[in-house]
């Protein structure tokens, strides 16, 4: 997880992943799209590959890079994790709100608790 984050935190690597989401591409296509020197693109691809975010299409004549579906599934799991944090936080807020409401009606103890 942290490796994926580290790999994506660099803006050019993030752009590479965005481009690869649109389809598999060779290094040269990425170089043309990104307007970056080829050695720099290759270096970014190596980092992404080591982090498990992209892989080389094995059967292609040309070396085509693609996003690993597992990495994308991980991305989808991120949203659910963050929602989980907010869910617990808002459960706690719910209790605070409930306490405040109870304090406002000291003469009406029958309804709750």
């Amino acid at each position: 997880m942290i490796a994926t984050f580290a790999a994506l935190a660099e803006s050019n690597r993030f752009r590479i992943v965005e481009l690869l989401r649109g389809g598999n591409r060779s290094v040269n296509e990425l170089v043309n799209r990104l307007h970056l020197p080829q050695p720099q693109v290759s270096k970014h691809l190596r980092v992404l590959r080591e982090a498990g975010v992209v892989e080389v299409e094995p059967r292609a004549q040309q070396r085509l890079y693609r996003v690993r579906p597992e990495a994308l599934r991980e991305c989808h799991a991120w949203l659910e994790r963050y929602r989980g944090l907010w869910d617990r936080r808002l459960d706690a807020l719910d209790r605070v709100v409930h306490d405040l409401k109870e304090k406002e009606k000291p003469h009406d103890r029958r309804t709750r608790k």
Partner: protein
Amino acid sequence: MIAEPESRTRGHQTTMEQRGDRELIITRRFDAPARIVFEAWTRADLVAQWWAPQSRGVSITSCEAEVRPGGRYRYVLRTGKGETVAFSGAYLEVEPPTRVVYTQIFEPVPGPPVLVTVTFEERDGGTDLTALEVYPSKEVLEMVLATGMETGMRETMDQLAALLGRLG
């Protein structure tokens, strides 16, 4: 993309939706008037009771908020590992009990702030709360989701700090 609520939730359900590539919308209903929910959301001594994800061993050590336009707030948290991190920002709009707009910075991560707009809509005796988080870039949003903040506060805060050092 909408994350499905879990059924075990005690109160009402929390929903989270990603809009575009740098906005998150969080909603939740509360069984109380808007003025009470607004107070609980903004008053520092009350924020201290709910803002930290305590189930992750995180606690709030200090909570200060000057809730007026131009005023600032700072929430200091201690992680389960004893590290101290803080969220802070400034209030841009304060309109009790319906709306509050503020910036938010997670201090370990330098850069432009997240813009948070919270609205409190009273309906049938309850309040629909909506928090809109607008991130400075999709990279920052991805980063927040990647660390989950939760994960970040749980056990990888030191990894994150080390990582930010390397990236810096």
